């Protein structure tokens, strides 16, 4: 609805204000009159049942979260909400397409390249994600004022530089879509790196998955959209097993697989297959690798040769030392630590990358080079600490202790 209002009011700011006021009016009205019929009647009249289901789901979600958020509650009882009647008319002609088109415009605007990456993330979460400024601040462990200021500056830039509210044209679409997907994945990774007690930060994983579903709903059929959603589902499926009772990290190979979310794995695997059928993409390949991990009944049954093969294809598409590193780890599992280590030691440019030292350390330990393994774990711990990943830092320190005690 915010998206439709933006188009009608011609300005991000005005639309946001309108929805705030409308929302406030709605709240006031509810407490007096209860939930109004109008929005539902409006939806029903177009016969778009999907839209209704979606609204209902959002309503339930919103109530659960304690905030009656972006639901169909903006009643045409306030001055500021008059545009909503126009929105309703428009919607009756073309309900779903209009809303979806507007959401597409919104997400591409939020992820415009002229905005800093951090700004793209915050803006997407605030508008498409519907997270409050406070919730975003808590999730990213930043002061509320900082996040608020970033939003203010972003909207000012959108207005003053006249960033267009539109879906990019064909020749720019691929690149712009990559930016949108990256933002969603950044949100997911922020949540993925959180410790169990950082509940709001952890919840970013679910938020990212939800955004991924929204992108899919918006008829973005590029294989990478499905691939990204699949990847996030498959990674998040392991959430319950990733930390032990002491809130310490548990490696993939040591995780209790009965705690993995079988439903998410099934859905992720299905989406992966659909993604790859539609075309080869980096996210699609990564999700296939994740699917192979998740579908193995135990670590020893992991299809390492196929994983290596997928990394080979991924390297063709996206050559990078990070992908080479991940492939080297798969080689180590498949052909032994020495083979993996030879590949890792040939890599350049990963000296500040924590997983590089972690992988190196593990391989060195396997071939009995205890001293060098300890040094590598030490470097990994330092780098983890530097980015505030204390769960990983503690993990590496435990490894160092374990090495010392044979």
């Amino acid at each position: 609805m915010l998206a439709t209002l933006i188009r009608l009011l011609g300005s991000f700011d005005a639309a946001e204000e309108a929805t705030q006021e409308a929302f406030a009016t709605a709240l006031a009205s509810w407490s007096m009159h209860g939930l109004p019929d109008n929005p539902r009647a409006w939806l029903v009249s177009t016969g778009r049942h999907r839209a209704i289901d979606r609204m209902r789901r959002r309503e339930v979600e919103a109530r659960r979260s304690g905030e009656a958020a972006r639901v169909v509650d903006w009643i045409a009882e306030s001055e500021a909400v008059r545009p909503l009647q126009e929105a309703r008319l428009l919607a009756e002609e073309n309900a779903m397409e209009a809303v979806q088109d507007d959401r597409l415009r919104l997400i591409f605007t939020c992820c415009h390249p002229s905005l800093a990456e951090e700004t793209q993330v915050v803006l997407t979460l605030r508008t498409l994600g519907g997270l409050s400024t406070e919730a975003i601040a808590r999730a990213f462990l930043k002061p509320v004022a900082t996040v608020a200021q970033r939003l203010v500056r972003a909207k000012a830039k959108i207005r003053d530089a006249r960033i267009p509210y539109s879906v990019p044209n064909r020749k720019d679409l691929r690149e712009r879509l990559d930016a949108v997907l990256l933002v969603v994945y950044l949100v997911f990774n922020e949540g993925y790196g959180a410790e169990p007690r950082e509940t709001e930060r952890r919840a970013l994983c679910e938020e990212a998955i939800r955004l991924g579903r929204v992108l899919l709903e918006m008829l973005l059929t590029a294989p990478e959209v499905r691939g990204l959603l699949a990847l996030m589902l498959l990674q998040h499926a392991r959430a319950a097993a990733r930390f032990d009772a002491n809130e310490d990290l548990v490696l993939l190979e040591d995780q209790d697989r009965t705690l993995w979310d079988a439903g998410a794995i099934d859905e992720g695997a299905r989406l992966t297959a659909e993604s790859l059928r539609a075309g080869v993409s980096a996210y699609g390949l990564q999700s296939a690798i994740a699917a192979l991990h998740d579908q193995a009944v135990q670590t020893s049954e992991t299809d390492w040769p196929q994983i290596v093969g997928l990394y080979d294809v991924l390297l063709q598409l996206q050559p990078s030392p990070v992908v080479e590193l991940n492939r080297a780890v798969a080689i180590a599992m498949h052909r032994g630590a020495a083979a993996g280590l030879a590949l890792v030691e040939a890599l350049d440019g990963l000296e500040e990358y924590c997983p590089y030292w972690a992988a190196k350390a593990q391989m060195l330990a396997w071939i009995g080079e205890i001293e060098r393994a300890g040094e590598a774990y030490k470097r990994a711990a330092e780098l983890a600490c530097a980015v505030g990943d204390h769960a990983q830092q503690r993990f590496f320190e435990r490894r160092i202790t374990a090495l010392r005690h044979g």
Partner: protein
Amino acid sequence: MQYLLLVYHNEAQFAATPYEVLTPMFAEYFAYTTAIQASGNWIGGNRLEPTSTATTVRIRDGKRSVTDGPFAETKEQLGGYYLVEAKDLDEAIELAARIPGARIGSIEVRPVPPMPTMPPA
């Protein structure tokens, strides 16, 4: 809406560029300028003399200071500008991307705030 496209480049590199490379580049600039004039985007623009010819003027505490050189030492220096009319930032970015200097240096795209409408007298 108007945008100022500021063309930055490394002057030292530019000075060291051989004639055979510069001549076709000037031709490209001419073609670009002609094209955006025809399309109605061009409002103005100029190449600038190098920063070795620059003078910086400041008034502080009522005192005038006139110094040799650009306002600050930067890795890239302002070499020229285009003032264009574009419907939004995306169009301005397109215009900037077509400037020959974009391949070597950097083009800064700055929106020009619209003139506030004066109330009737």
